[in-house]
């Protein structure tokens, strides 16, 4: 589900911004922090920004952890598919992904592989050839202005 290159790249960013401690210690702490931050988000009743998460951490750790470390950890959890994120202003807020949705994600992968399922699933868009892409760009850039539709509910 996640490309393997993504995780290490994110991991490198984190510890460098931390104050004090050897890189090895910081890495070990990161594993424990992941589950702690996941627990905070699961316990929260609303989506949290990395800043909110940092405030809710144990007072001792909150003082030690930089904002960018928290961002790193939640991005990593997002990349693993354990957190969902929504754009909020310039950043993101995060919510935990429940077990059912995790199962749904795995299902989507399974469905994507079988050709039989094409007969059952209605995908929003099908593939786009190079010619189609050029045509689509032209159409969307055109000045074609469709008349307003009748209000909802009148047409079937």
């Amino acid at each position, binding site marked *: 589900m996640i490309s393997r290159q993504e995780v290490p790249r994110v991991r490198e960013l984190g510890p460098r911004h931390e104050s004090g401690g050897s890189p090895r210690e910081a890495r070990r702490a990161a594993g424990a922090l992941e589950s702690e931050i996941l627990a905070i988000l699961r316990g929260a009743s609303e989506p949290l920004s990395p800043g909110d998460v940092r405030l809710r951490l144990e007072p001792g750790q909150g003082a030690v952890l930089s904002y960018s470390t928290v961002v790193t950890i939640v991005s990593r959890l997002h990349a693993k598919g354990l957190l969902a994120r929504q754009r909020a202003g310039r950043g993101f807020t995060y919510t935990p992904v429940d077990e059912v949705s995790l199962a749904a994600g795995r299902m989507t992968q399974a469905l994507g592989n079988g050709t039989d*399922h094409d007969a059952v699933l209605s995908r929003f868009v099908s593939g786009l050839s190079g010619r189609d892409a050029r045509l689509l760009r032209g*159409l969307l*850039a055109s000045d074609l202005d469709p008349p307003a*539709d009748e209000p909802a509910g009148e047409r079937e």
Partner: protein
Amino acid sequence: MWLLYLPLVIPALAGAAARPLANRLEPRQATWLLTSATVALAGCSTAALALLAAYAAARAPFLAAVGDYSQAVMRRGDPISAAAGSAAALALASAAVAVVVMLRNWVRALAESYRRAARLPADDGIVVVPGPAIEAYALPGWPGRIVVSGRLLDRLDDDRRAALIAHEQAHLDGRHHLFAAVARLAAAANPLLLPVARSVEYTVERWADERAAAVTGNRRMVAETIGQVAFLASPRRRRTTGISLGMIGSRALLRSAAWAGPVPRRVAALLVAPPRRGRTILLAACAAIVLLAGISALEAASDLHALVELAQAAGS
């Protein structure tokens, strides 16, 4: 005896007519028309194959004994060569196998879909899946679910999300997967009907697009949503360049879209006025063609019946 071959040729005609019809007719009407036409034409062509095979079988001495008819009269009146009859029997058998295999796979896939839909949360019928995929589809079930990847939702603003959801909801409400499946089954019986089955897949998409346009009240926005999602889903195409279309007029763009893939066709259809229902002439022409296939199959059947009766009278 050319009447007997007519039901086999008419599906090719329908295959050629399917795309222009799908472009011109109101999508809901087009879906019903094309789906019922595929079923009727597949039925007629299968009947014609069965008749051809029956003529070939009637030459067999064994059947002549069982049916108590004169083999000589049968052979004299038989308009079909033995080779044509055997070819028809072979085609009939392979069509039967193709239909059975496709039906079995489809029933399995549908049962799987219902099972999976039942396991997903049902609060508002929308399931957001994590992960990097750009994906949105309607999963038929009881009730059906709309599955959208979180990454796709992140990229869409509220209006476009509404358009996407309305489109997928229209698929579930209208049971569009049934139309597509029926048309595919008919095409399995007669591969000449394949273009018609593809057109049905296109018209159900158009049907859902028109529904989304009606719900959101903004055709251009629905068109832009389809375009945005298509580019998100094919990242390689995002930077496509090549011939500049800037100088081409919008009329010419619409004309080329009519023969392009489904995505530009759908977008082009949304950028013009909504299609009107009706078009009596087109509908009448379709009905006439299907009727012609039916009548010729019936006519051929009664010919065979008359021949068998004649041979039986001579035999007894």
